């Protein structure tokens, strides 16, 4: 029982840390529009280039 309460407290502590980070907009290395544009461009480039080359 004590263990369970201690574990619930630990979960609450960890959740609180993430809530504070989120409230303060302090997530490090957050993906931005540049990342999403980069992944779309890379995918498109490889698909088109290899389609033209190989298909």
């Amino acid at each position, binding site marked *: 029982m004590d263990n369970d309460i201690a574990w619930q407290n*630990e979960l609450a502590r960890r959740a609180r840390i993430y809530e504070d980070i*989120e409230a303060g907009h302090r997530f490090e290395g957050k993906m931005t529009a540049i990342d999403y544009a980069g*992944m779309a461009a890379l995918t498109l480039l*490889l698909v088109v280039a290899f389609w033209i*080359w190989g298909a």
Partner: protein
Amino acid sequence: MTDHVTHGGFAAAETERAEAERNRAAAERGDAPLLPSERLWGFWEFTYANSALAIATWAFLIGGSVGLFVGPKEGIAAIIIGNIVGVMLTALATTPISGRYGIEQFIALRSQFGYNGSRVVYVLAVVVLTMGWLAVLAMMFGRSIDGLTALSAGEAANPTGIKMIIAAVGAILVTWFIVAKGPTSIKFFNMIVSPALVILMIVMLYLILQHRSFSELLAMPALAPPFEDNTLNFIIAVEVNLAAGFSWWPYIGNLARLTKKERTAFWPNIVGIFGAAALGEIVGLLAAVALGDSDPTIWMTKIAGPVIGIIALLFVAFANMTSMANILYTSIVGLRQVGTASIRAISWGAILFLFCVIPLGLVVFYPQMYDGFFIFLVWTSALNSALAGIGIADYFFLRRQKLDVRSLHAPQENGPYRFWGGFNPIGLFALAVGFGVYVLVFNPQTLASLPIFKYLTASVPSCLAAGTVHYVLTRLFARGRGWGLYP
């Protein structure tokens, strides 16, 4: 008095340290979110870990299967196109969540399917997939051993004979024994096997290029094209690779939670998983087409001669066992996370053995599965592509990249992610729609397809359909019912 107080202070500090260590270990097992300070991997560490997972013997098998449908030039194009799309969508659906919140993948999945629904998804996506792969890899081990003994005795190999079955059964039992001993032995094998597989690929590529020039290889035909329509054969090859890309869905989220940042959780998948898997598949494809057989246990002996062939087969045999140990361990750890109290009460060794019973049955009673293994792989994409679509729609478009970490880890029975008896009917319906669309567009068993398949493949429409259905129905019905804390 002072000594007594100091002693007591040390003891308290020691207890606190031990408790912090216990909590961190529990978080690493997935019971709690990992804090940013507890994450282990930067960009290159994650890239290395990803590559180790991707560079496995199955890459040879998938590459060889591609060679059945198309020649090397089209095959390389299919490998790149299928893998980049599959890996990109899968990574997008799973890794930004884990990278941001340090959360276990199937706990995060409670927000999409409910706490019982995530169990259903686990059984479908992880258990079935892993059991199939265990059987296929065990048979590959058995075939390697059969090839080895035949090569040593100067006889012809019998890849479906009794020797193969005995060796495959032995491989599963030894894997069970290794995993029952714990994860340390698995890590040790990984450190040796992954770099050695890279060397093996380079040696094989060198030997292939000794037989034929690269331009000769590119001009070679497919081994067994099923249709006269080359475009259709090419799209099937793309579909096999999309399936390979989507097949990482059950595994990469839980690796990404060990990374320090969200961006670090995503991009290494493109370098590690896409790059390494594509390289291995291309070697498998070139070898298969150059030597006229898609089975790596056969082309390796043909290409390398008896001495290097024996070494390569021996190595591949044991590399398979490492792959088997990895996926078995990951699946059982996950099973204990999503399992009920009665499942968690089963001992580690017993639950591992129970998990191995079906793969053992497949090896003994259905060894033909090995030759049509790509059919099995493509079936898994019917599920994984839909899961990726739902994941992207839910996290990016419905929740706008915000999860309630507290509610996801709290007792679920009365929490916001209980949906309807622990199941989110919308998420599960969207999954069924995605699966249905896939099978309607392309039947992996018969290879029958609708005309649209030639333009869109089957995985992409399945992913889009599942994501759209999940988005629209959630907007229409979930928020009004207070399901799932949607904003």
